[in-house]
């Protein structure tokens, strides 16, 4: 049975600066349901990406998780057990997320090998996943190195790798930040289709309210390491309760006002 709900509870993350502990994420709780996209929004540096990484115990060196747990369908799990197995992750910058001296095929084989998937089904699985991610001609692409591919292709490849893992949940950490608008739209469409058709539960980290409007079902707003507001996407846009949410929305609208007026 595919799990239907992933919950992060009371996550706290700290680092040490000049000998004093600095709290980077404070008591963050989130719930991602299958077939639904939860957007985690907030200004740069408010702890969004860190929340994703730390909940899977993959925070960068020097940063530690001090509190919190992750539970699937109400059952608490060790983060190391669900990384790549129940939660796949798409990173922010596709160009640096691939080892420059390895081909796509080697990347594609790495995850299954790490998870102990039998070798027999691997090739077929990655082919299907690549087709789902909009990459035709899998054989040609699998032979390429990262520098031989465009940013859009790499991001699709990353999504394909995530899909091939068969994980029911996906953490997408600013999946469209470094891409041009057209590729952005394609990737967003792809993510939307995957949540609808394959029942993927997506935690979408972004600071782009346009992406939120296009993709999210629910929104959690973060500020300075805390969740300040959670709600359905329409409520966040039309009836923002917290000043930070209002600020984000207004900043977004002010950027696009001229265009929507024209």
């Amino acid at each position, binding site marked *: 049975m595919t799990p239907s709900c992933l919950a992060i509870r009371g996550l706290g993350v700290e680092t040490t600066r000049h000998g004093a502990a600095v709290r980077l994420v404070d008591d963050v709780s989130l719930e991602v349901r299958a077939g639904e996209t939860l957007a985690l929004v907030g200004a740069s540096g408010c702890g969004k990406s860190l929340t994703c990484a730390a909940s899977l115990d993959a925070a960068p060196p020097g940063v530690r998780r001090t509190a919190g747990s992750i539970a699937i369908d109400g059952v608490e799990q060790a983060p190391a057990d669900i*990384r*790549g197995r129940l939660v796949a992750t798409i990173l922010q910058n596709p160009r640096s*997320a691939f080892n420059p001296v390895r081909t796509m095929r080697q990347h594609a084989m790495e995850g299954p090998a790490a998870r102990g998937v039998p070798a027999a089904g691997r090739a077929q699985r990655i082919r299907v996943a690549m087709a789902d991610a909009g990459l035709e001609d899998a054989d040609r692409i699998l032979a390429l*190195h990262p520098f031989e591919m465009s940013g859009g292709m790499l991001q699709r490849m990353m999504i394909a790798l995530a899909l091939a*893992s068969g994980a029911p949940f996906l953490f997408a950490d600013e999946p469209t930040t470094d891409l041009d608008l*057209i590729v952005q739209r394609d990737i967003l469409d792809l993510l939307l289709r995957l949540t609808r058709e394959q029942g993927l539960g997506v935690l979408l980290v972004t600071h782009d309210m346009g992406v939120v409007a296009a993709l999210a079902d629910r929104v959690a707003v973060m500020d300075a390491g805390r969740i300040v507001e959670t709600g359905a996407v329409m409520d966040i846009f039309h009836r923002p309760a917290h000043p930070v949410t209002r600020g984000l929305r207004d900043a977004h609208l002010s950027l696009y006002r001229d265009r929507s007026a024209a």
Partner: protein
Amino acid sequence: MSSLDAELAGDLASHDLIPPHAHGRRGFWREARWPARIAALVVGALALIALLGAWITPHDPDAVDLAIRLQPADAAHWLGTDHLGRDILSRLMAGATMSLGSVALAMALILTAGVILGGTAGFAGGRVDQVIMRVADVFLTFPTIVMALFMVGVLGVGLTNVIIAIAVTHWAWYARMVRGIVLSLRRRDFIAASRLAGASPTQTFIRHLLPATMAQLLVLATLDIGHIMLHVSGLSFLGLGVSAPTAEWGVMIADAREYVWTEPLLMFWPGLALFISVMALNTLGDALRDRLDPSLRAEHGH
């Protein structure tokens, strides 16, 4: 529309504008200059002699025959005989097995320790890193020969102990290098991606970090092999490593000391063997470095 992207990249790739491997690995021989080729041949020949040593020596290297002691070179004994009538060429060949074998063993120990300790230090970071690197610093401060003498003094005389002593005195350089490379790559996104894809730290290290250190390790190792060879022979010369009856170049030089004025060739041959081996290995290491370092290659304009 993003198919345009794909098409463009596809075009580039299909027209070989971006060759998958700008320089193939098999090109070493073709690109190498003649000293490197000779060095490669010599190293190959040495390795062959070391492997086949026991079977291809013209005489028994340990057979004493005092009737023919200190003979000059002739058809039966190509390089003559030593003070106990043993065939010098056979002893040189048997010595190659001893020298290269012990060097290979020492190198294997050094590489293993260097990769494991350096990799752990770089990858784990924090206190582990501090402890390992401070220990490494201690080993780096001693001149290696002094340290090796000390180790042999503690462990006792014998080839095994010499090999251990050499490994103990050399691992720190390798550990430092591996740590440096691991540190420079540790925070890259693809390491995080590997971790997030479910790989354990060991798997991530072996798959993404170890290959990156291989080129440098290979170069440092080839350059160091000559150095280690001199160590083994040097310690044997001092009577700390291989003991007298066994054929080993350092022992042969030590044996020949008494005859240095009357029979200088006795000392010359093992010295020449040592010189040629060390020279060949260093030249090969140099050529490998030129080949594996992209910035140097760009300067050469290949």
